[in-house]
């Protein structure tokens, strides 16, 4: 019986990237992707997504609302490497270049049900004032080689001296529905 199909458990994630608070920026869009361990494999749904551009709401909250849906199903044999959602937010700078405005990651909730998470978003800062200026001028801010880095442990030591600034908060609302399927 074991040979027929290996036992896995499924993790169904659906939810949405609801809104963000970026007091300084407007017209942002966001990308999401998942980082998961070796024992995990996506079985259905989209692993990556890029949202529409949204503008700030005109009310008190000044929220950037995307309501961008996430729907993905993973199968796994091991809770180790539980998926994380990695979000990165981009928006135009003064010159119209697309510039990263924030990175953030959060684990998919461990318990089924509705969950709301608010992630602080941060970006790496230039290492010097001069670079800050040139990067601003050229529209090429420092960014991660890969947004997935924020969800991983390796290479953190390289970031020891790096400076980050928090620009805003993003609220994805992942809704995890998991069940163990024994076969």
């Amino acid at each position: 019986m074991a040979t027929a199909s290996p036992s896995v458990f499924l993790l169904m994630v659906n939810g949405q990237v609801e809104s963000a608070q970026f007091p300084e920026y407007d017209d942002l869009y966001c990308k999401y992707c998942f980082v998961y361990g070796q024992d995990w494999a996506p079985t259905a749904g989209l692993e990556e997504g890029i949202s529409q551009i949204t503008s700030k709401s005109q009310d008190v909250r000044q929220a950037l609302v995307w309501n961008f849906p996430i729907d993905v199903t993973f199968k796994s044999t091991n809770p180790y490497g539980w998926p994380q959602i990695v979000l990165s937010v981009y928006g135009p700078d003064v010159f119209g270049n697309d510039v990263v405005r924030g990175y953030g990651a959060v684990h998919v909730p461990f318990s089924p049900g509705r969950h709301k998470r608010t992630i602080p978003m941060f970006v790496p800062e230039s290492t010097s004032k001069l670079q800050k200026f040139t990067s601003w001028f050229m529209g090429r801010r420092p960014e991660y080689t890969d947004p997935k880095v924020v969800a991983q442990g390796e290479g953190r030591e390289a970031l020891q001296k790096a400076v980050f600034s928090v620009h805003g908060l993003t609220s994805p609302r992942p809704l995890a529905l998991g069940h163990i399927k024994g076969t």
Partner: protein
Amino acid sequence: MNPREEKVKIITEEFIENDEDADMGRQKRNSKVRRQPRKKQPPTALPKEMVSEESHLGNQPEPVQEEPKTHLLSMTVRRGPRSLPPIPSTSRTGFAEFSMRGRMREKLQAARSKAESALLQEIPTPRPRRLRSPSKKELETEFGTEPGKEVESTQQEIDSRSYSRVKFRDSARKIKPKPQVPPGFPSPEEAYNFFTFSFDPEPEESEEKPKARHRAGTNQEEEEGEEEEPPARGRGKEMDEEELLNGDDAEDFLLGLDHMADDFVAVRPADYESIHDRLQMETEMFFIPSRQTVPTYKKLPENVQPRFLEDEGLYTGVRPEVARTNQNIMENRLLMQDPERRWFGDDGRILALPNPIKPFPSRRPVLTQEQSIKAELETLYKKAVKYVHSSQHMIRSGDHPGNFQLDIDISGLIFTHHPCFSREHVLAAKLAQLYDQYLARHQRNKAKFLTDKLQALRNAVQTGVDPEKPHSSLDTIQKTINEYKSEIRQTRKFRDAEQEKDRTLLKTIIKVWKEMKSLREFQRFTNTPLKLVLRKEKVDQKADEEAYEAEIQAEISELLEEHTEEYAQKMEEYRTSLHQWKAWRKAQRAKKKKRKQAAEDHPDNEIEEPHPEEDLVKPTPPEPTDRAVIEHEVRERAAQSRRRPWEPTLVPELSLAGSVTPSDQCPRAEVSRREDVKKRSVYLKVLFNNKEVSRTVSRPLGADFRVHFGQIFNLQIVNWPESLTLQVYETIGHSSPTLLAEVFLPIPETTVVTGRAPIEEVEFSSNQHVTLDHEGVGSGVPFSFEADGSNQLILMTSGKVSHSVAWAVGENGIPLIPPLSQQNIGFRSALKRADAISSIGTSGLTDMKKLAKWAAESKLDPNDPNNAPLMQLISVATSGESYVPDFFRLEQLQQEFNFVSDQELNRSKRFRLLHLRSQEVPEFRNYKQVPVYDREIMEKVFQDYEKRLRDRSVIETKEHIDTHRAIVAKYLQQVRESVINRFLIAKQYFLLADMIVEEEVPNISILGLSLFKLAEQKRPLRPRRKGRKKVTAQNLSDGDIKLLVNIVRAYDIPVRKLAMSKFQQPSKSSRMFSEKRAASPSTHSPTHNADYPLGQVLVRPFVEVSFQRTVCHTTTAEGPNPSWNEELELPFKAPNGDYSTASLQSVKDIVFINIFDEVLHDVLEDDRERGSGIHTRIERHWLGCVKIPFSTIYFQARIDGTFKIDIPPVLLGYNKERNMILERGFDSVRSLSEGSYITLFITIEPQLVPGESIREKMSNMLKKFESQEDEKLLQATEKFQAECALKFPNRQCLTTVIDISGKTVFITRYLKPLNPPQELLNVYPNNLQATAELVARYVSLIPFLPDTVSFGGICDLWSTSDQFLDLLAGDEEEHAVLLCNYFLSLGKKAWLLMGNAIPEGPTAYVLTWEQGHYLIWNPCSGHFYGQFDTFCPLKNVGCLIGPDNIWFNIQRYDSPLRINFDVTKPKLWKSFFSRSLPYPGLSSVQPEELIYQRSDKAAAAELQDRIEKILKEKIMDWRPRHLTRWNRYCTSTLRHFLPLLEKSQGEDVEDDHRAELLKQLGDYRFSGFPLHMPYSEVKPLIDAVYSTGVHNINVPNVEFALAVYIHPYPKNVLSVWIYVASLIRNR
């Protein structure tokens, strides 16, 4: 639930009917029931009564359910029986449903229609349903373990299964404590009767008693259980009956039913019950608590007065708000229910906690998911609000500092002493001060408070009951009483002291007033308007006296008690001491006696005996206290400190009603004083953080020495204030102001805001000395009121500033207070407020035990909300949780997590798999989806791994065929593993640049470049490749990485010879050594080309790139110099899907770039069809290939250049023809090249960052490796390298390398003349050049294995030449070193040349000095190039290394074409050893001599056969759909030919060979070629054969030929020749 509900309904109906039956057929039943021994109490009640009881039955469940709430736990056993009543009905349903449903239904149906209306009228609610409710309800409660549930479940079971019935009956029997009924099966009739009737009599019995109980208003729960049993009994019987039904008698019973039908259905007139009766009954039944207030005496035990703890000074807390009526109802109810009055406190009220909320949850929060989701899904409408930036936000954000405001209100100044005070003023000030004191004391009235407290305490002692705990044990009471007593003592002391103080104060006031009056009289004028009036208050003398007396008596009695206690204690002491004394005396006497005897014996000694113990005095008994004495004492004290009862109460009143004598009536001195006062004026400066921020206006000093300012200063501040100071300045006349004093104002708490701040007074005093010449007393000067100058006083200028400091409130009501974070000072002051902290000191805060101790000592009222946080802290700290062990445990939770023993854990396959994976064991690295269960893990998963572990020492020959090589491979593997383990740490090392992409620090060149870019053409004519973003090898997955191969063009592709053309002898070019390096003149005459028919293309080449078995090819171009300019994209797949840097570096795959010629064959057999169709067959002929290892591409990131195509020495059917047209014009240039060339650009997309960062990092780490080199030398190497890197960072400079054991070795130690195999030297004994070539060939035959592959790119390990020959594998360095050593031994001048070449990148070549020119040798291919050869793969030169020195290239250029290799010129070459650092004569690490074994020819022959066999099998495998025929004849021909090729080193045999082939295979079209390579493993051979694509010919009648020849060289170096060919018979 539906069927169940239905069932319930049926039950309802039937039950109703049965009830009716019970009523109707009562008479009949009675007789029957009597016969049954079980029915002990036959029903005798009238039908009417029955009804009322029935209604009880209906009501009963409610009280039952309500009452036992508090006894739920104790009741569990009884619970089952109690909820039993519904059971009979249910089982009856089962009965009805099963056995007699049909018949019953028919009959019932008829009856029902008649009876129903009447029934419903009478009993509007279906009772049985209500009867069921208790058990059902209970199921819904949290108490899920109750038997009620069991009952319910049994009910269900009863319906269906008989076995459960039996079981249930058993349980029913168990419940039944004393079976009153003899067990036995009743007759069916009996049973049926019972079944239909049994239910009613029993409840009747049970209901009577509760009713009675209700009337009595008592609660006797013990009885209840008993009463509740009958139903159980009944049910037990009924079970028997049911069993019967299933038994044999069932038939009879059912038959009998027909006769009984009349009993079952009955008609009856509707009963009427008057509302009056009903009400009466209800009043009898129900208890409705009255709403009236319960008189207190009822709530308290007899003869007890209510106590009010609040009045006694104890904190009781605030009771929760409950409506008065509700309280009354509850009280009445409790009085009824609980006669012991446990619910009432001493004050006659219901006991209540001040805060009913428990500090911790006692129950898990219930998860109501559905509800919450529903609630959350509700949409909330929120009106759109226009966003207004509120100032609150601004404060919070901290963006707008300076908005905080401190309001300082300075209302005025009062001098309590001033130099200008007259004597009267001094007295007046004193009087005023005393009066203030008096007022303050009066307001507090501490004496009264203490008196009251004393009273309360006395009461408490009298009642002898602890107010907190009504039922505490005796000794606690005793303890509390003792406590009270001690407290009484203390309180009394305090009170006496207070009273005395009051009295003395009053006395002093009067005395001062008297003094003042006398002074006024004396000086005959008054300066102050003060006037003291003493008001006498009449008191009721008698009552007063009584109270006084009572007080004294009480005190006396207490004292007496104390004294008696003391006396008792003393007596005790006395007794013990007396006892001791007596004992002592006895002993003494005994001694004396002895002594006497002794004295009698020796009379002389008598006198000498001293009596040292005589001093023990007989203790005196303590005096019993005399009441009179105590009374006397008490009275004395009372007289002293207390107002005597007959004295009236004196109340002083100070008024300013007096008149001040005008100045003209005063003496001169006084007038001058007054004038002086008038001259003076005062103002205040406000200092914030020691900086003056504002000052008040200057106000003149009034005659009363009060100054009124009434000014408010608003200080706009940014930070939390540090200090706030007022400075008092006084100006006299027009002179400059003098600073009188400084007043420090406290910084207000954050809660103090404007409008709420009280006016406070702060005292100040000055130390100035002022002597005045008028009546003023001055300051700091002694003066006296007495005439004789005695009793001198020295007064200092002092006063009070009345002010208020508060935080301002903003427009929107928000206090403008700096955020708390700034408020470090404020925080400390807040801490100080809680005196607990100040009393223990700050350290006490951390020491909880100390704090708790303090709290216990100071008798903190734990109920006082003021102390609540403190008490909570203490309770938490001392609750035992904070047990601190004396030891430290490293993993204190380890024990808890050891859920399974280690052995078991190790046995788990899954755990093992996970463990191995995390260790990155190669077999399991990147293992995906480790199965969940052990049973799903196959044993074979581990087999490979275990086998490898087993085989570590065992040499496996299957794969390698040659044992020696197997050993070597094993050894290499082990070395590699150890090295990798060594560097495991550094592998994960990342630099910031790997993680974050950031623009570099711009310098001028970049800025200039970027500026230049702006002006750049958008589409330049000659585009250049731009640098791309680098990607660190992480987060990559399959398909992310692509290999881009851009094939630009090729030169000098071999061209076809006409197949039909006759054998022709081209002018053979026997190239001499000298010709090769120089521009050799063309030996080809253009005349051959005449053979080609016009319009026929010479060659139609295309390029096929195969990588990891993916094949891509370009379009077909034409001519020997084709230009494709095409980009091919090949996917890259890392081994095991592991894209880590280490894994990528160890990829051994090779990119094969094969050049083919596309040949079109006309297959039309019939010429007549030529017009209608084209039938051609495409054949591809392999022309040559270029092999580039992936590791090279990976490390180079891009490979751009022209490569020599590896063309087999014999290419049948092709000729390297020179294009005559081209050759004519560019002869000199063209002819430089020997072979064909191809221009390529290869890169990886995205660009991967190779392990460079690791290398950088490693270089530091490598230094840590032990080295046997001299420390000085190492320092020098570092210096040298640093200098070189500074000048030419791109040029390779090597000084030290790491040998195979990991030690750092100076590089020149590797170079030493070493003897080449004698065999090779013997071939051309006279021709040095030929020998050199042969030696180079020998070296190149040693397989190439890059270090990056073997050692994961971590470091470059250099092995010595003997190691290299033993390993038979190595990279450029080893080859170069060996070749260099051979050349040195041949007597050449040779150097190791470090530089960059294509495609290898950084590499090592060998440079030799021949007569007059330099030669550059590629050690891996054995080829050599002249210095000025344009096609030399070496592109730049970094340094040269000789056996005794290192020279770094410091010339401007590094291309070998443009540099001078003369190392003697110090301007061109920077040498390591120079005059300043002479060569120390380093010994070589190389062996003295290389020993070569003769190669084993037999073994080689055997290997040859095996390889041939394997290859043949492979070719057949590759052609699964076709038949593969082998042409033996051709094969043998080829086999003979291969040794010739080896002998001639693959040169110049082509034409002979062709001739021979043609001769032998004349009628075959032949295409094939020999492949030559060094031998390492079988796999590269297979790959090479595969890449030629010989097997791809799909012509039906194709035949194949394959021959292998292995030529063994010394030291087991094998040269492998493979000849593959396809033959097609010509027709």
